[in-house]
């Protein structure tokens, strides 16, 4: 493929050729909704760890979509190859981060019920909303995101676009929560609803990107020595906040589920 396409910002390519966005989507590469979109196509495809055959076919289809008139040799499909769909094997520290996502997702699952409740009750239940804000700030942000930002992301090029997107998501999340707090203080239900739902949408995509793409990509680059070191650093970070903190937040979620949960989505 033309280096021109490979090293052009993905957003620019998708805007110009929407078909490219649709093709990427078909391969489970979700660049279209990404807010930054300044990754290069080569970087985007590389990070998804497709098997060479799939990657060749994908690149062929993209090139075809951009230059329909060009004579591009079709990649030969080797039918004897099995698809390389393997279960992801996270290194232990990364696995713990994935497990923390599960608790965060339990809150995300309840957000629509919470915003419905806020809308229909006479007065904004400040304790409820501020409890959620405390979970988001204390657990999702301080406890979890800080390990990503201060420890995990240091193992790869932090200036790389992909990590920059993650930082941007964390920041956008913090802005949503500031708005939720503002809405709670002024009793503005619409503001609470908009930003809690916005946070939910953001974090759902963010966690999916981390679980399926970013974390496995980082893991693939770590040496065994780094895996051990990363594990010790994360354990030390956990120890510094104490065992009580994650337990307290888990209890918060369990109590909230008693009140709001119709169905647990893990």
């Amino acid at each position, binding site marked *: 493929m033309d280096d021109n396409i490979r090293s052009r910002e993905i957003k620019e390519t998708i805007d110009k050729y929407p078909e490219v966005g649709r093709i990427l989507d078909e391969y489970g590469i979700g660049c279209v909704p990404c807010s930054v979109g300044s990754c290069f196509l080569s970087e985007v495809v590389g990070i998804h760890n497709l098997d060479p055959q799939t990657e060749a076919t994908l690149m062929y289809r993209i090139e075809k979509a951009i230059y329909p008139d060009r004579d591009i040799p079709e990649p030969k499909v080797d039918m004897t190859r099995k698809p390389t769909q393997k279960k992801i094997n996270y*290194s232990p520290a990364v696995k713990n981060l994935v497990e923390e996502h599960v608790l965060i997702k339990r809150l995300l699952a309840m957000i629509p019920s919470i915003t419905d409740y806020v809308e229909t009750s006479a007065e904004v239940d400040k304790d409820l909303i501020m409890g959620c804000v405390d979970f988001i700030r204390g657990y999702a942000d301080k406890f979890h995101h800080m390990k990503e930002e201060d420890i995990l992301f240091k193992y790869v090029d932090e200036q790389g676009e992909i990590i920059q997107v993650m930082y941007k998501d964390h920041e956008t999340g913090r802005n949503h929560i500031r708005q939720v707090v503002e809405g709670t203080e002024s009793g503005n239900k619409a503001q609470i609803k908009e930003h809690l739902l916005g946070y939910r949408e953001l974090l759902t995509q963010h966690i999916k990107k981390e679980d399926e793409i970013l974390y496995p990509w980082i893991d693939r680059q770590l040496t*065994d020595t780094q895996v051990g*070191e990363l594990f010790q650093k994360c354990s030390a970070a956990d120890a510094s906040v104490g065992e009580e903190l994650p337990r307290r937040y888990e209890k918060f979620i369990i109590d909230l589920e008693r009140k709001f949960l119709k169905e647990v989505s893990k």
Partner: protein
Amino acid sequence: MSDCCPGSRTMDFSEKTDQGDTETGQRQSQLRQWPIQLHLVSPQAPYFQEKDILLVADCVPFALADFHKDYLKGKSIAIGCPKLDSDQEVYVEKIKSLIDDSKINTLTVQIMQVPCCSGLVQVAKAGADKATRKIPIKQVVVGLEGDILSEEWI
């Protein structure tokens, strides 16, 4: 040894035609310590301190052509056979001591694909369970013809 054990079933792959590239030149050994047998090593030996450790089933390095280059390099090693070695409680204690006293960074357990060889992973896990420190443990399963069947953190 019982005949029903698949681990000792006789197989011959001398017919294998693909011999790989004819190699020239000399390679360096990546071994940086002695002794290596798990009964003989002291878990407090300086070569274990804070290192990444390989716990290797005896048969593995014979099957795995690039053992030195791909696995031993940069690591310290202990070897044993979970089927034939005696006093394996000592092994469990030594693993525990490697983790707690020598503060090893990671432990990679390399075994053959035959069922009884997985006993070495059980030994490693038992030692790790007894230890108060926690460390990442990886399992690598090697096929009889030297292929890597799986490699994962457990």
